[in-house]
């Protein structure tokens, strides 16, 4: 971790539950006694565009965005978006990525192809790379829509925040109706 601050970038496509995951992460970090800042762009990005959410915690956090090239963990919800954000991560940083491809408009229209060899490109630069099938983990937990919390579970193992605080954060941020399945998905991800 760079100095006292832990820098996490959550990236993917609008509609994947990235904001909820970053809210749960921020809440858990606050419960653990850290100063926390979080930043992302709403608006245009919600119409299926790229989303990048920055979460930083530590003793005292200044900038709400992760300084370029200082990310400790890149938490990718989609492979191409994970690859796009690699320059934000420090050398030796970790990548936890969801094994999912979502085609952007030019690929849907047949004008470009979805890029190949992304896994190799990520692994080439960042040996500390964990590929997670978030959809499968969430299905195992009972609802494929909980893939964001399953992935968060996988990331959580790398962070110095106690399991019970993660549970408290989930209880606060996830609607009651979906809480049990999200807790289950989180723990399955955490067990990887």
């Amino acid at each position, binding site marked *: 971790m760079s100095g006292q601050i832990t820098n996490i970038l959550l990236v993917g496509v609008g509609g994947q539950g990235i904001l909820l995951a970053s809210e749960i992460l921020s809440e858990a970090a606050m419960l653990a006694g850290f100063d926390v800042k*979080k930043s992302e762009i709403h608006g245009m990005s919600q119409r299926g565009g790229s989303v990048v959410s920055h979460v930083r915690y530590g003793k005292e956090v200044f900038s709400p965005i992760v300084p370029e090239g200082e990310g400790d963990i890149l938490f990718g919800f989609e492979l191409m978006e994970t690859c796009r954000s690699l320059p934000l991560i420090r050398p030796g940083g970790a990548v936890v990525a969801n094994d999912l491809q979502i085609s952007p408009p030019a690929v849907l229209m047949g004008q470009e192809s979805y890029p190949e060899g992304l896994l190799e490109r990520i692994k080439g630069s960042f040996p500390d790379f964990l590929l997670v099938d978030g959809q499968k983990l969430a299905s195992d937990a009972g609802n494929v829509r909980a893939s964001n919390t399953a992935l968060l579970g996988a990331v959580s193992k790398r962070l110095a925040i106690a399991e019970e605080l993660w549970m408290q954060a989930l209880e606060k941020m996830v609607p009651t109706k979906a809480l049990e399945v999200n807790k289950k998905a989180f723990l399955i991800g955490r067990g990887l």
Partner: protein
Amino acid sequence: MKEILSGNEAIARGAYEAGCRVACAYPGTPSTEILENTINYKEINSSWAPNEKVALEVAIGASFGGGRALCTMKHVGVNVAADPLFTLSYTGVRGGLVLVVADDPEMHSSQNEQDSRNYARFAKVPMLEPSDSQECKEFTRLAFQLSEEYDTPVMVRSCTRISHGKSIVELGERVSDLPEPRLERNPAKLVMLPGNARVRHPLVEQMLVKLSEAGSAMAINRLELRDKSIGIITSGVCYQYVREVMPNASTLKLGLVNPLPQNLIRDFAAQVDSVYVVEELDPFIEIQVKAMGIKVIGKEIISLCGELTPGRLRSAFGLSQATEVQAEKLPGRPPNMCPGCPHRGVFYALKQLKAYVTGDIGCYTLAFMPPLSAMDTCVCMGASIGMATGVTKVVSDQEKKKVVAVIGDSTFLHTGINGLMDMVYNNSPATVIILDNSITAMTGRQDNPASGFTLMDDPAHAINIPLLCQALGVKNIRTVNPLDLEETKRVIAEEMERPETSVVITNKPCVLIKREDVFQKGPLYAVDADRCTGCRACLNIGCPAIEWRPAGDGSRKGKARIDPLLCTGCDVCRQLCKFEAIGSGK
């Protein structure tokens, strides 16, 4: 109690704690969520106004009635609200009045990146600038106090990174010792005729001098001496970047950015070897400090354009950068209209008709992008209609027929009505299409005067848009189902041909409206792979639910597929397929 709040949530909380009674706004990124959070406090009467000018006037009325009032908008909203703002500084207030303006450096969701601090100086209104969520709450509270103490509206300037960033906030209690609002006449102060205004203007100038002097002792202006070789004057989110990148530099953090606390600035400059100003966009602080005769470095090293980041600040000061991984060359992922969006068919028709489309602000501005590529202009809210009139004044009779203004329901009610009034009054032959999807969609589904509900979710009168157009004098008003491509194209073509003003109104709701009985998914569609010839006609509407599947043999051949998770059953793609390969699965 501590909570993690966004800047917008914290501003709403600050207004609540300050005893605010009325909050009024027109939605605009990145300011929208402030009013979506004031509704959580039942003590605040929160409402959407049709535009920012009305929103500010409602707040002014509440203030003159003796209650504390909040008005919020995005930076370009102040252009619309500027008329009341510039005279409000002369009248001053009764109940405290706070105008929050959220700037958008880098234009994440805006058409320009104007710097609202210039408005504060131009309109002679004090402005505070918070640098995190805690300050958003505290500064909003303080702004209400200063507003009453100095008898002036007070602006609070946020920006995208502050409004949409989250950080920890210590919550406080709502003040309870404010006087009850009641009518009180004071025409010498509140009727701005020349005779009264001439009396008021010098008072405004005196207020600014007094506040500048008091500002030097205010806790929100913070002199932090560290290494004295570099002293940096900064404010807002830029302060955070300075502390991140140059933790040892001395800083003067300004919470009050208009008027500047000049004595404190002189004091700071005298204690450090060299003075820098770190600010996004315009050299607002820099020019004033230079005018004070202090040598500073600012825009020589920091861009006038875009937002600052820790990396950009490092570059500006020639500090080393973290080693960079080469950026990947990857297909872009721009935003797109949703699957089933009722706007899509209209722009498909306009492209086929080779219309010259004067566009407007909303989700439909995305029709600018391929494959629809059917928007020729976009300037500001409501501009489409007046611009269409203007175009028809100069081009040939043949070209006049091509001119079509396209505007959404909320934007039409915002500032489009006047344009249509002019179009009828001055007999423009252009065609106006009102994309009525019953919501303000782009900013995240806010209600408006034609949607039938208020911000507080109470039922409301829904303006009848065809009747409104009729009252303005439009003779040719047609309503079409935009999901019926043949009908949409035929009606638009007929009205384009007509040598007088005509209005075409679409009647399908936004697919994102969650209220029951508004939008319903139809039976989903699928591609019959045996019938699909791979002609790609269905790809021309750019629906995210339709995917091209290459044959995989290296040729250009392939077939279309519809993603059942994304399809809403709008039926538009079926109408494009000449081979009847697309059908509903039922």
